[in-house]
């Protein structure tokens, strides 16, 4: 069986999520990585070294620079005849692209898989992770997005796969990239951080988030937020952890001033250790927390900061 894995990158660096997807892909068959982008040969180099990767296809063209689905989908469709599986991380890039590919191939797409039972049977969360569905695909080619937190990362070094340059497709002429407003942070990336500290509505204002940043600095953690905090404009959208935001599963998740709506729990309940700090003892977050502190966060967080300095 052969698997084509769509690499996530920014034309310079391979995103670490790709390493988790390789683990899933390698259980399905021989892994070829597709690097589509512009001026992205360094990414192809990095991809060729990933453990378990046997080949890298490099499609280097201006029209792939920003990963527009209208341009990238035909590339995957053109390559699909040589593969049994097309996989990508269940990131916003993968979610944008893979359904388009599946529709062009007239097959179903299997979203956000968390386990592989066999070559055609996969487990995926539904209802915000309140139920797990085991689904069997009858399609000749399986188009899949992978929940990266559900699979370990492979070693980024170990292989020396061949890199084959492939010719691109034509510009679909349907869309163009205008610009981006990316959140710049010194912190580790939310979805791959070992420790995450998130703030909710209880933070009261975006001006209080530096308190969490300070803790994050001390712990080498990433900072996240609940939907309520994002909707209130405390922090940007890419901080959101939950059913419709990012899914995280760090070693330690610290929820500060988060009540724990099921939509938020969907994004963090697979964390190894959960700490909840909330002044409302009835907050549902306490039901899934390993350690609960019923305290005003404006007392608890400075204390935590001081305690970590000891």
């Amino acid at each position, binding site marked *: 069986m052969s698997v084509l894995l769509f690499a996530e990158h920014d034309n310079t660096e391979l995103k670490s999520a790709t390493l988790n997807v390789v683990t899933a892909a390698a259980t399905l068959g021989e892994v070829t990585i597709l690097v589509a982008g512009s001026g992205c040969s360094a990414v192809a180099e990095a991809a060729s070294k990933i453990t378990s990767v046997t080949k890298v296809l490099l499609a280097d063209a201006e029209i792939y620079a920003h990963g527009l689905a209208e341009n990238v989908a035909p590339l995957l469709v053109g390559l699909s005849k040589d593969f049994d599986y097309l996989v990508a991380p269940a990131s916003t890039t993968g979610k944008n692209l893979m359904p388009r590919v*599946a529709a062009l191939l007239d097959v179903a797409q299997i979203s956000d898989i968390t386990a592989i039972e066999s070559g055609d049977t996969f487990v995926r969360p539904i209802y915000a992770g309140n139920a797990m569905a085991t*689904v069997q695909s009858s399609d000749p080619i399986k188009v899949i997005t992978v929940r990266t937190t559900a699979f370990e990362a492979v070693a980024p070094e170990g292989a020396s796969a061949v890199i084959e340059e492939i010719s691109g497709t034509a510009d679909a002429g349907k869309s163009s990239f205008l610009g981006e407003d990316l959140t710049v942070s010194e912190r580790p990336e939310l979805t791959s951080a070992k420790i995450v500290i998130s703030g909710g509505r209880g933070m009261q204002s975006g001006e209080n988030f530096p308190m969490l940043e300070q803790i994050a600095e001390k712990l080498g953690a990433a900072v996240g937020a609940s939907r309520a905090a994002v909707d209130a404009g405390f922090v940007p959208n890419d901080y959101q952890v939950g059913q419709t935001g990012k899914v995280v599963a760090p070693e330690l998740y610290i929820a500060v001033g988060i009540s724990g709506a099921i939509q938020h729990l969907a994004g963090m309940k697979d964390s*190894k*250790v959960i700490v909840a700090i909330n002044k409302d003892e009835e907050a549902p977050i306490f039901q899934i927390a390993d*350690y609960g502190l019923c305290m005003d966060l404006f007392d608890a967080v400075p204390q935590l900061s001081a305690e970590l300095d000891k």
Partner: protein
Amino acid sequence: MKVLVAVKRVVDYNVNVRVKSDQTGVETTNVKMSMNPFDEIAVEEGLRLKESGAADELIAVSIGSGQSQETIRTALAMGADRGILVETDVAVEPLGVAKLLKAIVGKESPDLVILGKQAIDDDSNQTGQMLSAMLDWSQGTFVSKLVFEDGKARATREVDCGLETVLLEMPTVLTVDLRLNEPRYASLPNIMKAKKKPIDTMTPDDLSVDVTPRLNILKVVQPPTRSTGVMLDSVTDLVHRLKNEAKVI
């Protein structure tokens, strides 16, 4: 501009879903059902386009059992002009839904189709992208800001590392994210008025679309539950336990 919005009837977002004991799915009998929250945002955006004069007609489409008519009525009460129900008892997958919507687009020729980015029941996040592919249109997914200029759509998208803005040729398919707008509530007079608005009913067969599922659901189970933790009295105790008991810091 003619705008089509797709609306889905789902288990209300406040309901704690329960897995059926025979593992065939989740309990939906005697459970509150509502319009998928993302679809409310799609309807609202369509209404705002109408109110700004950019759109002249807003059609709400739903696919599902006869009860999906209630979901269409909700869209009509919010202000949509008319509805289309594709009635089927099959649990149609996103691929099938996209095919049905494509057939309706063929009949109605809208300039714009707006959908929620995902339904909160199956959490697939596929239908809009699939529809766009089948129509060979542009796609703007996870949209949090939308502006029309020079006959094109300028869409700001919520992506993993922030925001991205793309320019889309028309016609286009958009899927909307949470921050695009705040959906309105239907007023009582509008709920009454909505009862008189027309809903066209058809079946997948009428549209010559095969909606046979491609995925066989073998079982649906509850996820593993977390064991209850402990309540602590002090930050000192917390840090002590994180260091020595959980060993995570």
